[in-house]
Every structure is written in structure tokens, then in C-alpha cells.
């Protein structure tokens, strides 16, 4: 179905998260790159050598969660916008997501939380907005928080209708 819809299955998504949820008490990159495409910026930009693709740049990236610090450099380096950073803090799920639409959210605003199917699943709180600049490949990174049960469902934010 993924090849018909672009929506990965639950199993595919879970395979990209750490098996032990406790690992997410610190921020970790979740790499949703399921397709063997010739591309390796995530590997070359990672300051901690946590991401491995290897000489054949068509290989799917592998992440070492022990090395990943959740810094998010790979998030704005991924040409496919296929990487987010996830963390669990005070019972809530926190995410850093790339956002390339205007207008940008503002800190403390409530936006809609959206799943991989494009459906609204909840509301989320905008925690931080790192606006696009040259060093982030002109990609804005938004940090949001929402209820923890949405940990595996959330993928992006959507502007609420006024």
C-alpha cells in the first residue's frame, strides 16, 4: 500500500523508533526513509556519526540511538523532509519537525497535529520556531508538544482555521 498511497504502515513507522520507549527520554532522530534513493546528507552532516549509509548511497540510513543526541541537524538536511526528532518529557511527546509553508507558527500558539494520512489527530502547542536561514538549508524547524499517546501518529503541524 505504501507504494500506492505514500503512507507507511504502523509496523514500518515503529521500526524507525527505538524499541524501548525510555530511550526517548532524550531526543532522538526518527528517520522515515524507506525508499532506496541515492542520497546521503543525513550521514555526512551528523556531528556524532550516529547515522550510517555507507559507500552505496542508495542504502537506507541506519541510526545508532546511543550516539544520536537529537540535535536536529539531519532534520533540516534531509532533502525528503523524512526526519523528525522525537522526545518524551513530563509525560508529553515533543517533536522537532521541518516546516516549509507560510505563514509560520508563533511560539505558544495552538496548531493542529496531523498524522501521516493527513488527518488531524489532536491539537499541539508550538514550543519553539527556528526560522529558515542559510545554515538550515532555508528550512524552518518547529518544536511542538502534544499528548504522549500520539507519539507514533504525529508527523506534522497544520494551521488552524481562524
Amino acid at each position, binding site marked *: 500500500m*505504501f*507504494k*500506492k*498511497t*505514500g*503512507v*507507511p504502515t504502523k509496523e514500518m513507522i515503529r521500526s524507525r523508533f527505538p524499541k524501548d520507549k525510555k530511550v526517548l527520554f532524550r531526543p532522538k532522530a526518527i528517520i*522515515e*526513509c*524507506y*525508499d*532506496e*534513493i*541515492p*542520497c*546521503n*546528507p543525513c550521514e*555526512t*552532516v551528523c556531528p556524532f556519526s550516529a547515522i550510517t549509509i555507507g*559507500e*552505496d*548511497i*542508495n*542504502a537506507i540510513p541506519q541510526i545508532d540511538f546511543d550516539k544520536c543526541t537529537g540535535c536536529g541537524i539531519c532534520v533540516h*538536511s*534531509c*532533502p*525528503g*523532509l*523524512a526526519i523528525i526528532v522525537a522526545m518524551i518529557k513530563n509525560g508529553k511527546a515533543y517533536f522537532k519537525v521541518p516546516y*516549509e*509553508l*507560510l505563514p509560520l507558527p508563533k511560539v505558544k500558539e495552538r496548531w493542529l497535529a*496531523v*498524522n*501521516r*494520512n*493527513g488527518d488531524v489527530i489532536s491539537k499541539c502547542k508550538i514550543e519553539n520556531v527556528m526560522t529558515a536561514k542559510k545554515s538550515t*538549508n*532555508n*528550512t524552518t524547524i518547529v518544536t511542538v508538544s502534544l499528548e504522549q499517546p500520539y507519539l507514533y501518529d504525529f*508527523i*506534522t503541524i*497544520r494551521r488552524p482555521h481562524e
Partner: protein
Amino acid sequence: MINRDLVIVGGGPAGLSAAKVALDAGMKVTLIERFNQLGGQLIKQTHKFFGSKLQYAKTRGFDIAKILIDDLNGFSHDQLEILLDATCVALYPDKVLTVYQYGKYMKYNAKSVIVATGASEKILAFENNDLPGIYGAGAIQTIMNIYGIQPGKEVVMVGSGNIGLIVAYQLLQAGVKVSAILEAASYIGGYLVHASKLKRLGVDILTNTTVKKAVGEEKLEKIITVKLDEKWQEIPGSEAEMDTDVLCISVGLSPLHQLMSMAGVKMVDISELGGLVPKKTCDYETTVDNVYACGDVTGIEEASSAMVEGRICGLMAANHLGFKHPNGEQLEDDLNNQLCVLRQGPCGEKIRCGLKKVGEI
């Protein structure tokens, strides 16, 4: 008649890359570009590119164009002549070219020629496909990303290859609604990361579906879609209406081969490469001596490969005329290795298969 070591036709990723390497080797180069600025399709590409650092991965297309153009700074006018708004209207087997610019025709006598003309869009045959409001994806990108004009209020995209997916995303960024993406095949054609990006923004990709008919008095008002079976045959009774003021056609590209055909280069029709492509040696030389070809004109592929091919082509053109690139041998190995890596995955299967069919001279 103007005499030059090398005339390059086309100032896109392949032509610009070829020019840089040939200039570094000491050739006197003329670069001919039909548009009023260099960069080819790169200047319309707002997305970050795939590939590796060597092909400027993670840099946005229009920024890559700037890098390639900046690479040509510092060469004197004698070394590098850039003709903008200039169309190469003829290429003869003796490497004489006719160039049309600002109402005048000029003749160039080149020791070698690199054809890097790129590709043109394919169009789809259906009833009323000439109604205003029906565009090719390239035209949408031009009016939107070069001139800053929204093509309409809502768009139905036909084709889910990388261009269809990327342009659909760019339309959303420009504040235009994308109602759906139609795909005649059973599966999404482009990279699935692009498809996932669109799906999460609420855009559905309808597989086994195509456009049957456009409807409208003076301009497009709606389309009739139809479902296709696994053999691409219409399923009777599966027609449906969709209101839309813009239909964007993105069903593939075909190489702009005409100049080479005119010069008498031996051409072969290879569907995997998009149509008529030149036979060439491993040095990118066609069947006409010192006429080379690189980029999409030799087979439809990504811009990353076009840049690498362009560099190899520039190097080969220089080598054959006795110009020595300071770093020639190592560069050649390195570039060939880059192409190999870019093409070795499952996404490169079609191009590998096509290139095998073309064979070498």
C-alpha cells in the same frame, strides 16, 4: 564566422558543468542559452536536492544554479563567451552552428560541440486538452517560481513522477490548493518521500486513474477522470467529475534531440531514456567526430547525474583536442565513480537498462 575551441549548446546543469571543466583545461568556450538567464530547469527548483555532497545534495536547486554559474566567474571574455536569449537553430556535421540572437543569425565554427539541450515535456492526448488552464508542469514552475504568479485557485496534477510530486508540493507552498494527483499506473512513480510529504498535507494520490476529458466553455472548468485496469484500459462506468481551474500535466520528458539528428548523429529510440537518444562512446562522443552529448538529451535522469555527465563531457572534449586539465585523470575516475554510485540503486534500474540498450559505439 566565429572560431571557437568548444561551443556548448544549453546552459543548464550539464552545459554549465561542462563549461567549467573545459575552461579549466584551457579551452576557449562559447555557451549558448535560449533563456534570458543561465541555470536551465535548476532555477525553478525550490526543493533540496538528493545525491551526495559531490552533487550539492541538500542544497536547493536554484542555489545549485548559482554555484554552477559562480564557477564560471573569473574567466575573461576571450576564454568564455556567454550568449543569453540565443537559440542554436542549426548544427551541421562539420561542426558549424547557426545561432539566432536578437534578430540576427551568427555562424560559429567549432572544433568541438557539446549538445546539452535537455528535454521537453510530453503531453497527454485527451478531449479538449488545449483548453486554457491546462499546463505542463514546467510552465507551472516557470510562472510560479520565476515570475511569482499563481497559476490558478486549485490544481489537479496528472502524473506522480518526481516532477509531478515536487510541483504539487510547490503549488501548496505557493498557496494553491492541490485537489488530487492522478496516476495511471498502479503505483506512485516518484520517490515515496515526496509522496509522503504531500499525503501528510492532505493531498491524495489516485492510482490507476487518468484524465479522460476536459470540460469548459472558454477555459477549464472541470475534468472527467476514469479508472484504468492493470493493462491501462479504461474501466467503463468509472468516470467521475472533478471541478478544477487548472490541470497540470506531468507525464514525463523526452530528450531534445533535434540538433543532433540534424548533424547526422546516429540516434536510437529507447523508451527507458525517454525517446530518441544519440549513440555515443564511453567518452560521450557521438557518431560525429568531436560532437558530444550529456545530460537529459542523452536520457532522462536527475539533474545530479546531468552535472556529473557534463563534467565528464567537458573533460573528454578537452582531452581529444589536446587540452590538459590540471587534474584530468583523477577527475575522470572520480566522476565515473559518482555516476556509478548515483545509478546503482533500484531507482537507477531504468536508466541502467536504457543505457545498456543504447550500447557503446
